[in-house]
């Protein structure tokens, strides 16, 4: 209709064509197709892998390589229900027999992608973060409880900290008996920590194992 008239094209800037009737075709709602795609278990796209690795590397640095390239079998990351599962190939094959809506979990859940496609690490990833963590922090027994209730780590509860931890570096929080309790972000560098007042925050809380009890419903 419109395109038949050449002069129209001359008058109206092509960029501003209102296209009243063809609009539904052109502006097909992308959301629906995206939703359908999300629900199926699948490997991560490159963007997602990048988001995941960037987040992981905050805590374990280059050690991600050890997760990707394991000597004891093929392990991979899979996206299911917007959650990232780290799972061995064998178990993945078993899981493929299970209908999508009936599959609840497989392997280890690392975290989830938010609606805005950001990756959020869950406490369930701690089993893989703790052994490879580059920067660690140990909290005193008295402060364990507080951290396990979801509070930040204060200077008064700080037992030890890895040398030359930078500010805003991802750290894994340990109890003094070397039990990994969770992870967070260093609020101050190691140097700054030395001369802080006792009530100052040393580590911003991100996740702790208390969530197994507190947030069991939303854990994975």
């Amino acid at each position, binding site marked *: 209709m419109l395109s038949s008239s050449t002069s129209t094209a001359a008058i109206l800037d092509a960029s501003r064509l209102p296209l009243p009737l063809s609009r539904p075709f052109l502006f097909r709602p992308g959301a629906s197709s995206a939703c359908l795609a999300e629900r199926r278990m699948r490997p991560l796209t490159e963007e997602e892998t990048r988001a995941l690795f960037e987040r992981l590397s905050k805590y374990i640095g280059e050690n991600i390589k050890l997760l990707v390239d394991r000597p004891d079998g093929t392990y991979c990351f899979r996206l299911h229900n917007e959650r990232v599962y780290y799972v061995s190939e064998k178990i993945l094959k*078993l899981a493929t027999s*299970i209908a999508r809506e009936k599959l*609840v*979990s*497989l*392997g280890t859940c690392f975290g989830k992608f938010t609606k805005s496609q950001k990756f959020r690490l869950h406490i369930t990833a701690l089993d893989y973060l703790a052994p490879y963590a580059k920067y660690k922090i140990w909290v005193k027994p008295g402060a364990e409880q507080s951290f396990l209730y979801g509070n930040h780590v204060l200077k008064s509860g700080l037992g030890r900290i890895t040398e030359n931890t930078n500010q805003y570096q991802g750290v894994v929080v340990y109890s003094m008996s070397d*039990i990994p*309790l969770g992870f967070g972000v260093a609020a101050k560098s190691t140097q700054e920590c030395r001369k802080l007042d006792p009530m100052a925050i040393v580590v911003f809380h991100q996740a702790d*194992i208390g969530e197994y*009890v507190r947030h069991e419903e939303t854990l994975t």
Partner: protein
Amino acid sequence: MGRKLDASRKEKRGPGRKSRKQKGAEAELAHFLAADVPASKRLCSRSRRRAAKRCQELPTPVDKANADHQELSAPQDKKKDFHQKPITGKKTHEMQHQKASILGFSDENAEWLTLAKRKRLQSEESKEEECPELGYGSEEDSVSDNEHLSLGSGDAEEMVDDYGTSSNSESEQLPIEKAARKLKLLQEKKGSRQGSSSRDDNDDAVASDLALNMDVEEAFVLPSSQAIQEISLHPTDLHVIHQRIRDNVEVLQNFATRREAERTRQEYLTLLRKDLAVYFSYGDYLIEKLMELFPVSELVDFLEANEVQRPMTIRTNTLKTRRRDLAQVLINRGVNLDPLGKWSKTGLVIYDSSVPIGATPEYLAGHYMLQGASSLLPVMALAPQENEKILDMCCAPGGKTSYIAQLMKNTGMILANDANTERLKSVVGNLHRLGVTNTVVSNYDGRQFPKVLGGFDRVLLDAPCSGTGVISKDPMIKTNKVEVDLQRCAHLQKELLLSAIDSVDANSETGGYLVYCTCSITVEENEWVTEYALKKRNVKLVPTGLDFGKEGFTRFRERRFHPSLKLARRFYPHTHNMDGFYVAKFKKFSNMIPKLVKEVDSVLATEPTSLDIPAAVAAPAAKQVKNSKDQGLEVNEQFNGLSPAQHKTGVKCKRKSAMQKRLHRKSTAGKAKKHMYKKFKKGN
């Protein structure tokens, strides 16, 4: 009320197996506690006053006097009577010995289950001992004034007094007590003089003394049936009821000598049932079921055991730590614990704890799992091997699944399935917490299973059940179970078991096993279901590998089960001090699904002479055909082969044929086939 609920007992905290049920139990406990404790105290003091009064007064009725006399020895006597069963494990008359023995554990368990510290032992003792002793001793206190009995006592404080401080203060003792003490001293003296060799002699002497007392004792008079009805309409004091139960049980145990001449055993049993139902607040149906299941004395033990919580147990997660390390850490946190037993390398019993066991950093870090001792058993029976493919059909809340994973050292594959989405959340949480990585969690109805995925090396089926083994966790079960529930459960269990069997790969090199377990103790949900599976599939029972526990029933009332059912294991709260449980281990020897046709064929072939038998079989079998789809036309043809008249006769003269069948059975007793017909009839 004379409930065996203890105010001093701590409520259990934190999630554990069937935590929902536990919570229910706690609520129930609290409910009881609020009303009970002061009442019982008040009663005690009043009765004490009454007793003092009566002592002063002239003892007019003979029975009162008798009762007083009897007090010397009666408790010990009773103990002897009631605890021949291994509830205490020690048949000693001395108080000290009784103290040392741990109640609620079987003999073999008692050996290893020694308590950690001497001091705690006593307090523990006072708690533990209530269970049996209160049951038999406590009602005397208020009813017939013998609360002074060292054995029976209204509440824990008094017990402590008896055992501890006040035992020395003679001034506080009543004459009866003094007499008892004297007698005991005498015994001890005698014992020391004569040495251990004359122990039996000594016992005999005591026994004769007891017998003497018993003769003097007034016989238990069964109320008339009218009175019974009235009683049931207007429930009286619980103490009265308990006294009656006690007496009734005594009579029933040597019925020949103690009965009233013209009263039948049935009447006694009816009264007992009613009393038990009122006293322990059970529903009529369930108490009836339990009476079928246990002999009278054991029944009371069982009911008593259901009133107290089982000790809290935890399982070390060997994926993350070792038991020794864990025990050390927990002890440092002020937890009092012991190894669970010789049979478990990972279990720990928690006696008491200054911290909530379900919220320690170790718990959160997945170093252990709160798990009942009984739920370790099916996994041990399953004996999963590394690199196997295993299905846990009803996995919530994931305790058994994680134990399987732990035994497999996180190798192989586990499919953890449960039908309930909500409960799966805790499964996922627990598995992640415990660091289990070889598991896929799915949300199917278990009955869909061979279709979804099959060929597993081993399958664990912890079937949903009526929960009659975990009454202590969920007292609601006492009243809310009716026959339909049991039937429904049993039906579901049969379906699940068949699909579980179908999911097993019989040709598996390492496996081909299936473990069926329930936390119920009824025969309908256990032996019947097992028998049904044996009949329907190519499976056989194999030893569970558990060296304790009671054997499964091979005969129950009028039912006869396959002899191999004695390989199954039953666990009871009062004998093993764990939740009531049933474990059966199957080995699948062929992937073929046998056709029922063959059975019917063989039936007809083996009993060609008896006219009634095929007819009697025909009726239920026809029903069977209707139910099962896998039966082909052949079956119908089979029945078409029978003349209609025969068929009709069979249906019509059911009673007659049943009678003849009974005769026939007598002639060829012990034939499995015959039981099968009966099961056919009953089961369908």
